């Protein structure tokens, strides 16, 4: 069964071709007060372990709870570099960035956070990123001269915060065990850049170091920690743009299939938790668009150049093709869009939704959303 056929059967969704004649929704006029939560999986998940028949058991929440409420883009083709930081930066700028994935550098092009804050004159507290690893610490603002300093998003790296908290509580020996980057076992670089310091976290999130570490004691994984921090941000700061990158799935690089699938199941549950948090938080309910997308896929089992799910190094079609789910007020429900789109289309779409321009972005607004 092909990808498209399966999706239609699995969801009973409307055939998307009929949508192409629709006029865009009147979103711009009502942009004030709107919020957006973007969840990216910074460790690609393949169709086999998610959307295809054997994978459905891994994503019950996405399939049964979120998909019926969503417009689902079935073919999101990433034509850029398949490294997690550079790919997420590309999604955040709407341009395929070309910097070294492992370098500690900001994106070259303006980020969605800068467009949003500069155009709409929004304060620093209105755009936040919760990111998985040290490599992401500069994703909040670009090196663009027209934007950059003063217009970026605050970036929180929960694992780094936990490491700092452990130091503060005398558990520093544990720091090295918090995987930072699954591409290389045990790789944990020193943090450089404008991360949020521990005391600032306490101030911003109204969360003491003791409470933070006490909560962490009940968590299974770094992604659970990220969602915990994201929910604190929603409660205490209620930013209009909240960008969360989950990363547990990238444990696949260790070659352990069961841990990779466990992480997919966890991401599925966390996405549902985020959606439920949006629905129950008065600051977000009824005015928030939730976007969920893996940054890209992983290598296929049959490509001789790869080793299946373990990596994303071949650039084969499966590693480039993923999906995107959009939910919220004004978004058509239970619809599958079959036409290929690109992850760089997200920023112009968010611009159209919230009412700011994204002039340097190379993607195009998704007409099925705006």
């Amino acid at each position, binding site marked *: 069964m092909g990808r498209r056929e399966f999706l239609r059967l699995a969801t009973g969704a409307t055939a998307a071709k009929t949508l192409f004649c629709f006029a865009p929704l009147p979103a711009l006029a009502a942009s004030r007060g709107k919020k957006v939560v973007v969840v990216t999986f910074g460790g690609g998940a393949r169709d086999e372990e998610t959307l295809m028949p054997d994978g459905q058991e891994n994503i019950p929440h996405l399939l049964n709870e979120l998909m019926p409420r969503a417009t689902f883009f079935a073919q999101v083709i990433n034509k850029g570099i398949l490294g997690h930081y550079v790919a997420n930066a590309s999604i955040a700028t709407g341009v395929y960035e070309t910097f070294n994935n*492992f370098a500690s550098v900001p994106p070259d092009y303006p980020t969605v956070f800068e467009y949003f804050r500069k155009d709409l004159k929004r304060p620093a507290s209105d755009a936040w990123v919760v990111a998985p690893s040290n490599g992401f610490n500069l994703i909040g603002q670009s090196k663009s001269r027209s934007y950059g300093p003063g217009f970026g998003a605050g970036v929180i790296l929960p694992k780094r915060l936990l490491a700092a908290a452990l130091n503060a509580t005398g558990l520093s020996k*544990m720091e090295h065990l918090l995987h930072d980057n699954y591409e290389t076992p045990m*790789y944990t670089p020193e943090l450089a850049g404008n991360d949020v310091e521990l005391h600032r976290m306490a101030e911003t999130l109204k969360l003491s170091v003791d409470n933070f570490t006490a909560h962490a004691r009940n968590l*299974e*994984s770094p992604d659970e920690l990220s969602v915990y921090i994201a929910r604190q941000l929603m409660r205490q700061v209620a930013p209009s743009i909240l960008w969360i990158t989950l990363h547990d799935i990238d444990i696949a690089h*260790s*070659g352990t299939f069961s841990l990779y699938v466990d992480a997919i199941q966890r991401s599925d549950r966390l996405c549902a938790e985020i959606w439920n948090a949006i629905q129950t938080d008065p600051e977000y309910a009824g005015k928030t668009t939730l976007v969920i997308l893996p940054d890209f896929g992983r290598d296929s*089992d*049959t490509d001789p150049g790869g080793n*299946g799910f373990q990596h994303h190094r071949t650039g084969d079609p499966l590693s480039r093709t993923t999906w995107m789910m959009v939910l919220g007020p004004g978004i058509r429900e239970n619809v599958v869009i079959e036409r290929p789109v690109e992850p760089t289309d997200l920023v112009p779409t968010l611009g159209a939704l919230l009412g700011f321009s994204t002039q340097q972005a190379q993607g195009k607004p998704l007409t099925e959303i705006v």
Partner: protein
Amino acid sequence: MSPADLQPAQFAGYPPKARQLAIEHLDLLRRLPLSFVPLLLREVIAYDWKFPAERRELETQFLYLSELDTGQFQQVLKPFAKLQLSAELERANWVNEPTQFTEQLTAHLWTTRQIDQFRAAAVDYIHHLNVAKPQPSPPVPRLGIVLIGQGVSENTYRLFRKLRPHGVYFSKVNPADGRKMLMDGLVARATAHPMPFAHWYVDGGESMSCEGLSCISYQALDSLRAQIVTNITKVMESGVGPEALRTKLARMTPEDFGMKNTGGDAVLNRFQLSVLTEGSGTQIYSTTFVQWAARELLRRAQPLTLLARFAPRLREQSIKDLLAQERQRPLLDPQGSLRDADMGAYYTWLNQQRLSGADQSRFLVWFEDHSEAVAIAPSMKAGSESSEAIGLKELVSRIA
């Protein structure tokens, strides 16, 4: 430097057989594009430590290229020649550091969005090569055997879901003396078809006796793994990134760890080291070690017989575990390891199917000490099930 400027003296740093091979084909190497020749030299420089099958493949590749007439040569290499390389790559020491060059080339191709063209060129090239010079058929059908689930008493996970469509699922296998019967069969094949590096046994735990076989085991490499992890830690502490770490790992030699780098042990030592330095996760998880070792053996040694036995790997620590600090010694995860191994068995079969004689090859995966197995062979009806009570010896003889 351009390939056209290659001189014999530039191969002085190569091991003896590799140097001889390169100089023998110097005229050919000079005609190849820069985006291609270092990839070939990466194989040449390791020639002295390659398995017989790999050497044969490399020699075949030289033969294929040398037999192409001018028009065919240009046609086959044109997609590589069209790739735009940077001045930095042109200046690189690609003769003596072809592996490092390959890493830099890969990064360049991704950055300049030429990776898809390169990929298409490589697929096309391999296709032409295989059509012109098909791999020889094995003297006997290949046999792959995978044992999964060691240490698991009860299981609810539906096993072999990816392999069942290709063979017969047996639900009443008699597990008595299973391991011994399979090992005996492996040794019998090795005795009947004696060839160097043609019969392999890989174990994710402690190795059983492997008399007459080529074998590697996770436990036997404990000391080497520990040394490599120490090296990785040191490199990490020096502040370099993952790419530089990979380069350093690729440069490690058996001599760095007190192992022989010459004589009969050199090939095996090099292979063992490569599994631990080139494989991601092989240093930490025994299931990954077995899967990757089996993959690399099939790709490189192209064995007639391979028995891969998975063992329980370490349990991944949760944040809760880390903060509790309650574990004094590592715990194992047999159930997770079973799922890893189930996928690993599928990948092992896929990799066996990439070799010559695939339509005649045989494969058996068994849930160790339990009654479930899948057998794949020309005589086994794909996608079928059997509830017949059967012993492992009988099962192997049916597919052999």
